[in-house]
């Protein structure tokens, strides 16, 4: 299972090739009580990514762990200069348990980058990101891109408690205005989030909103977006088999022009229009 034997001849206009490659693990260790950070040495062809895209990982079969299908994982960071690809993950099942067994020097077969990432339209100057838990990992690359494009970004970061709040230092290092809220402090409830967002809209204005995962936050941002006519995007998850589009496994329902449509999370997503998304 090495790199591709044949160079793809594209014949799709403007669509990038998808690469399969073996990457060497540089590090793979816990960052707090819940999450682990895995850093891979990756070739430059793999690192031509957009924030919000994902890779499909061939998790190792080891000991009692026998993951069969690949596991989709959103990109936490891609750094062409350093030749690194970062994933932040929580061990929840067979695939992620197997990933956690990888040691520096081991290899991991990755396929990607896959899917459609976040847009930052030219007229979107003030950006708001609202996410919770590991959803913050998916949005981290967006913060880096916003910085590169010189946009102002506010991040409302939510978690159960302070110790599992992710990426705060990373966001601050990118000059993101970070607002941390937690269940422990009683600051993460929807009413309080709405209060914070309404204040931001009043004081600075918000041109676009981004989120990932949480149904509560999705519902809140859809309501705020409708009230103030602010566009937004959401990264969604769904169980996947192929990750490329042929198997039709990962569909979710969306509302579009008053009708329900099914779209593939791997292909038409994982980033979708905020107002079209339906929670699960």
């Amino acid at each position, binding site marked *: 299972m090495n790199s591709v034997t044949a160079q793809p001849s594209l014949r799709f206009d403007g669509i990038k090739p998808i690469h399969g490659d073996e990457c060497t693990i540089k590090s793979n260790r816990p960052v707090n009580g819940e999450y682990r950070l895995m850093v891979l040495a990756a070739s430059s062809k793999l690192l031509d990514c957009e924030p919000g895209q994902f890779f499909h990982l061939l998790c190792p079969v080891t000991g009692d762990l026998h993951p069969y299908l690949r596991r989709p994982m959103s990109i936490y960071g891609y750094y062409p200069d350093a030749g690194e690809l970062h994933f932040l993950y929580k061990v929840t099942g067979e695939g992620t348990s197997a990933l956690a067994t990888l040691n520096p020097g081991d290899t991991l077969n990755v396929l990607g980058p896959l899917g459609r990432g976040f847009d930052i339209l030219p007229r979107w100057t003030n950006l708001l990101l609202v996410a919770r838990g590991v959803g913050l990992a998916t949005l981290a690359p967006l913060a880096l891109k916003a910085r590169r494009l010189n946009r102002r970004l506010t991040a409302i970061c939510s978690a159960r408690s302070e110790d599992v709040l992710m990426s705060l230092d990373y966001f601050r290092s990118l000059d993101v205005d970070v607002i941390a809220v937690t269940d422990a402090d009683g600051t993460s409830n929807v009413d309080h989030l709405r209060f914070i967002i309404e204040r931001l809209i009043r004081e600075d204005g918000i041109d676009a909103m981004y989120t990932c995962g949480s149904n509560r936050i999705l519902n809140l941002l859809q309501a705020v977006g409708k009230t103030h006519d602010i566009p937004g995007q959401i990264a969604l998850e769904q169980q996947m088999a192929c990750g*490329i589009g042929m198997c*039709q*496994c990962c569909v979710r329902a969306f509302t579009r022009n008053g009708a329900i449509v*099914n779209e593939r999370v791997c292909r038409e997503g994982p980033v979708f229009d905020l107002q079209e998304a339906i929670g699960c």
Partner: protein
Amino acid sequence: MLNLETQIGSLTLKNPIMPASGTFSEELAQVFDLELIGAHVTKTITRQKRSGNPTPRVCEVRGSMLNSIGIPSKGVEAFKTHVIPFYRQYDAPLIVSISADTADEFAWLCEEISVPGVDAVEVNISCPNIEEDGKAFAMRPSTTEAVIRKLRSATDLPLWAKLTPNTGETIDVAKSAEAAGADALVVSNTLLAMAIDITTRRPKLGNLMGGLSGPAFKPIALRMAYQCAKSVTIPVIGCGGISTVEDVVEYLIAGATAVQVGTATFIEPQIMVRMVDQLEAYLNAQGLTDIRQLIGSVEDGEASDGLVFMEAAP
């Protein structure tokens, strides 16, 4: 000079490796050059737009998977407008998979899809026939024969019948398909199966049950491909659990003229291209020059028909 070419009736394939329906689409052109495989087989389409089954549509079992995707389809018109033109840029033959609830609708769709750019029609007769208590056409010789006859009169293109393993009458179904005018058999579709999450006690598939595919299914489909090759004179295309070049060789030895690779593409999307290279290397290493030296070369001695065509484990 190695020869990987194989003949499926009037169609010549430059090599015997092609995708199984439902595991292949235009998107794979982003992964490898689609010209390198023997043929292109599209996901089953239906006359009307269909949305498919509830999620989860896939779950994994040890070393294999179950699926109940449910043939979501954009309908025949969208297929003719968008999909067929895409594949016309390739020389590899285009095989269009179709399905329908009734024999008449099957025939209508078959005629409708017999257009320039399509080189053969694969008829997915493993799906439920609503006129026959929901039993799949290919579960019984009589319904197989009836639907293939209608399909035969609906097209001049080569007709490939995709059989189901969910039958106890494999040989008679195969013979019926041949007698009714099928040009090849694809053996086979997936095997009905189930998995339950013991924590939630819920079935792991949204549709309760689904089809088993992947390595665990290979010995079953291989047995059927062998039996079919022994009972008909039309070509048999092996399909089921192929994930290595050794699996390809095993099917060819069993009597398959070509093979379809499905689930393995989900794990390793370039695998078909790699198998073509590895098949060449295999022939070289074995001192062979032509895959025809493998096809049907099984050393099954003087096995009696009773053994060859058994339908129950001894």
